[in-house]
């Protein structure tokens, strides 16, 4: 093969930053070619996607989308730190949404406790959904990538079951929606936007807390050791099982909260799975990886992905492209990230 000579070098945060930016730029160049192949002018498409940043009310939309992306993303940083490939944030989010809906519509509690209870049960639901694959992985070694993914499909089917079946709203003219939530189950928003600020605050605070957890606590230490090297962890008396389960519970719980935010803050009802989440759980993977599993940096990367998501909506409307096109960017960004990481890690020369 090629006569390349690779030499490892130390990767500094500056190099990582450059690598990340290069990866994103490269991704847009490559995606442009794919657009061209399918007869779409990439420059026009990009103008549509990024034209959105400037307009003020679109900024509101971006922040709105940032909320679930950030919640999923920071949860995943913890899971990935523990070397657990949670691909199931999407499903965990949906379960959170389902439980929030149940509290909103079917539970009789004092009205002022309704929203807190929705968040609580949303967290518990997402965590429980993540707990199953976590236990299977830690006790039996079952591949968590596939189990978490399968549970996404199951969660989505379950949402469909509820909205077509038992929870189908009476006032919705036959549409597969639940009834609208009572106002007491609506999250307050920043005026003129859809930014449900309580969830935003939860997300931002969680990001800081998780950073603290990872770097400054014994639990974080155990998590890092267990995630870096299972054998050494066992040798040091650190329970890998506990680390996996804990990381998954946090990760799933936060995704569940994202689900609560979507139904209580944006939709105010349960509807199609693909309307509740346009792939926030999957995009959360990119949020975490671009941020190098750093919960605080995830705020920036979640913002970037939120731009992309709003852009995806825009090209759907103005160019008639399916929203799934966003996946092209997701995939290429990841691939470019891997490539640029390689370039950062090795000095390459011909020989």
């Amino acid at each position, binding site marked *: 093969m090629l006569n390349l000579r690779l*030499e*490892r070098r*130390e990767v500094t945060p500056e190099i990582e930053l450059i690598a990340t930016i290069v990866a994103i730029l490269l991704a847009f160049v490559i995606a442009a070619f794919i657009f061209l192949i399918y007869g779409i002018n990439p420059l026009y498409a990009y103008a549509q996607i990024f034209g959105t940043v400037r307009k003020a009310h679109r900024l509101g939309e971006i922040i709105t989308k940032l909320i679930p992306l950030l919640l999923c993303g920071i949860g995943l940083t913890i899971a990935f730190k523990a070397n657990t490939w949670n691909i199931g944030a999407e499903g965990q989010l949906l379960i959170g949404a389902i439980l929030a809906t149940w509290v909103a519509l079917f539970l009789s509690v004092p009205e002022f406790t309704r929203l807190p209870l929705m968040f609580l049960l949303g967290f518990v639901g997402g965590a429980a959904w993540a707990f199953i694959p976590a236990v299977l992985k830690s006790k039996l070694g079952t591949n968590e990538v596939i189990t978490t993914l399968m549970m996404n499909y199951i969660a989505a089917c379950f949402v469909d079951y509820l909205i077509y079946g038992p929870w189908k709203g009476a006032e919705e003219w036959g549409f597969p929606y639940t009834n609208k939530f009572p106002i007491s189950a609506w999250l307050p928003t920043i005026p003129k936007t859809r930014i449900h600020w309580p969830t935003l605050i939860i997300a931002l605070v969680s990001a800081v807390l998780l950073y603290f957890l990872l770097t*400054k*606590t*014994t*639990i974080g*230490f155990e998590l*890092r*050791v267990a995630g*870096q*090297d299972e*054998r*050494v962890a*066992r*040798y*040091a*008396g*650190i*329970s890998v099982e506990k680390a996996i389960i804990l990381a998954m519970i946090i990760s799933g719980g936060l995704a569940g909260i994202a689900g609560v935010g979507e139904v209580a803050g944006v939709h105010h009802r349960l509807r199609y799975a693909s309307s509740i989440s346009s792939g926030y759980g999957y995009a959360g993977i990119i949020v975490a990886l671009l941020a190098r599993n750093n919960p605080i940096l995830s705020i920036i990367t979640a913002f970037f992905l939120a731009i992309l998501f709003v852009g995806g909506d825009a090209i759907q409307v103005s160019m008639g492209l399916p929203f799934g096109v966003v996946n092209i960017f997701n995939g290429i960004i990841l691939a470019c990230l891997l490539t640029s990481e390689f370039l950062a890690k090795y000095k390459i020369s011909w*020989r």
Partner: protein
Amino acid sequence: METVVEMKGITKRFPGVVANDHVDFDLKPGEIHALLGENGAGKTTLMNILYGLYRPDEGKIFVRGEEVKIRSPKDAMELGIARVPQFPETVDNLSVAENLALLLPGKILRKNKIQSMIKELAERYGLELDVDAMVYELSMGEKQRLELIKALCRGAEILILDEPTTVLTPSEVESLFQVLRRMKEEGKSIVFVSHKLEEVFAIADRITVLRRGKKIATVPAKEITKLELAKLMVGRPVTFELKKEPVVFGEEVLKVNNLRVLDDRGLLAVKGVSFSIRAGEIFGIAGVAGNGQRELVEAITGLRRVEDGEVVILGKDVTNKSSADIIKLGVAHIPDDRRVGAVLTLSVMDNLMLKNYTNFSKNGILDLRKARELAEKLIEKYKIVTPNVNVPVQQLSGGNIARLILARETSGECKLLIAFHPTFGLDVAATEEIRKLLLELRRKGVAILLVSEDLEEIMQLSDRIAVMYRGTFMGIVDSEKAKVEEIGLMMGGVKPET
């Protein structure tokens, strides 16, 4: 033709070390040329260059008088060069026949052919092996025989053996030497890599000494004495005299009773082993790798399930207790593989607090300043060479990682130390330091279980010696009365006559 192989001015740099520094080496037809040097001297690197696994930064290689570029093992094979690696590189989940098929021509698997080939080699050299056996069922010695057959099956004329005796019992070594002599008679040229003086004298025609990547000398074996050679190899006069003071043993610290443990494949690896160690005693376990030592150590330290029997530490039954519980009793453990003793991607500080991080925490929050202070203290005390406490451990040299593990394990309250190959792969100076440290701990009243393949190390340090063979102890002898020959025989499965 004067030489079959000539390597001139070979230089190879790795990050931080010059593994080969303008080394010259030549091999004559029909000779056994020993490449002697301490661990880390650069022997394997030089031979990997000849076998096309590494490419030299500088230097030229001539084979049968012609300059060649050896870019891959394929090139080496085409030049008639074969290699027996330091540790068997067999594919354990395939059968012997399939392992050999990797090297043989033909597209379809034909077991008959392979069988007849082995038969021929068996007749010529006495190398026998069951072609149907799965490689994971083989002992280390048998795996090495497979490597030898792999090297021979293509009719190589130039043979590299990289420390071939490490995994062999003394009697297996003798039969290997017979094979080598027969090959020499047939006119094959052999490079015999070793760091053991005795072996080199027993087999070599010429000897080349490497030290810290540099070639020191090439001498005919007949014209040099062992002492001179040792001096060349180490670079200073060697006095291997460790002072082992007599100590009074204290209470019984570890007691192992009729222990039975399975290996990864679910086969019985430890078959009813019993012994006990008292405070201040070093109990050595000798034996060739793969005879159940790893499983025994892992069972004692809580890393592997005990099927039957019991482990008692300081009067407490810890059979099948978690490793965390056992660590809490003051059991330190130096694993044989340094990658198990340290997380290579985490920092020096993280690794130094790997086992006692809870000591630095208040309500689950780590006091990182205190941890750093302690780490810096340990770095100084144990002479760990590192730029600072924050660099990942993978940037440290092997010797420094070994010291780091030792520092962490022995600096705290330690009642029982389990040292598994503690000096593996280290050079003479580092080895000596670590052995001294073990004796120091012994004086302080720590009970030490020393597992090692290095017979010399075991003889030097231990108070009592057990020899492990196929999961059982062949016997336990007092080190004062023990004879090397006797232990050697036991390593090969021969019970002592008493």
